[in-house]
């Protein structure tokens, strides 16, 4: 067994896992963070997307031991107790999610995109979501919501620093 310590959603978390445990399994089984989903387990669907040290990754394609000492952000860390993240707010308002299973991964990909590129073009948004398969929505209302969040930053420059 390997001891893995990482910062998850701002908190230090430690778990003892078998060496072959993926980050996704550790998050779901050990830390009870079931927001990240297992849809294919081989990196095709993106439902397991989380951020590690600020970059979006497929948590099913990373061993937990590889994330040792790193900073992990999952869907559970996107909102504060007081406030939804603007992406969550706009996804809700625009009806961007239907069955919702791909949602946590899509939101993390969108968050990673906006962190790097606060004002993305539509093709850039499509490129950023290409690793997240969705069968319900045709991606249309997700893209609209991400554009709306970007637009929000124009209207409220202060929002830039938080998303």
């Amino acid at each position, binding site marked *: 067994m390997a001891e893995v310590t990482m910062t998850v959603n701002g908190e230090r978390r430690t778990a003892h896992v078998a060496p*072959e445990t993926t980050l996704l399994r550790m998050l779901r089984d050990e830390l009870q963070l079931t927001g990240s989903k297992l849809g294919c387990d081989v*990196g095709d669907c993106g439902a397991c997307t989380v951020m590690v040290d600020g*970059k979006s990754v*497929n948590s099913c*394609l*990373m061993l937990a031991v590889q994330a040792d000492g790193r900073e992990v952000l999952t869907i559970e860390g996107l909102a504060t107790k007081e406030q939804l993240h603007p992406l969550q707010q706009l996804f809700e308002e625009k009806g961007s999610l239907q069955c919702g299973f791909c949602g946590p991964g899509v939101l993390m990909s969108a968050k990673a995109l906006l962190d790097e590129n606060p004002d993305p073009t539509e093709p850039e948004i499509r*490129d950023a979501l*290409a*690793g*997240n398969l969705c069968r319900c929505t045709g991606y249309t209302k997700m893209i609209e919501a991400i554009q709306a969040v970007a637009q929000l930053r124009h209207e409220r420059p202060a929002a830039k620093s938080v998303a």
Partner: protein
Amino acid sequence: MRAFEVFSAKDSQHAVALLAQHAATSKVKVLAGGTDLLADLKFAPSSHAPAVVVDISRVDDFRGIRKTKEGLSIGSLVTHTEIMNSPIIRDLFPALVDAAHTIGAVQTRNLGTLGGNLVTAVPSVDSGPTLVALDAVVTILGSGGKRHMPLAEFFVGPRKTALKSDELLAEIIIPTENLGKPTHFLKFGLRKGQALALVNVASSIWVDWEKTTFKAARVALGAVAPKVIHATSAESFLEGRPITREAMEEAGKLAAGDARPISDMRASAEYRKDLIAVLTRRTLEGAYALAQAKRTEK
């Protein structure tokens, strides 16, 4: 996944030592970005499962993109995202940026490494053709020390490289004489996002501007032979030939002749040959357009 032990290497020497230590007695796999390895291991039968995984993802001396006296050195652990964001690569080899961009999606590009991609040595390896077209050389590190070889020879066959069981791919070098060589890469997949290549082609050319002829033209083909290959008849045809659409068209046909594709569930061999002809011409057009643009810049 089936149980295995993980040994994490601190640096390249440690990585080689771990490999040498475990390869003798157990089935060992090397973990870099993990995007190919872990996907492979998830549904692997017991006969394919490794007992030991050597994790080299924290080996910092395999990172970094820098100019050296040999040329441009790209560490094997450089991720596809890092290639896309590298100012020096964007400036010298936009084709490498394009090639990296066609790999997987953002998440896999953030994890996946150039070295890891090359070491898979699948015939459709997306990083392969551009580097082969640029006569890239690889540095291999093992218990016996360092050795170099052309990338084209590093690929031995489908999923086979020249690496010995105690060796690692350390870096990829694009030789000095090819720095800034106009290159163009095209991949044709079954869809736009997360596409696997039916074929991929890269062409690099120098232009003799006095005669407007091709010089040192290289055409590399992926997914149409057991490994990435040079389209040698196309290359020799182009040498010294005036740059015309007809010449590029003819080179395309020759390249299609050089290809030895198979038919599989993704496409027939015949279609792959047709694509090679078209894509070769288009990469030559692209490389020439880039050459012209670079010349105007100066």
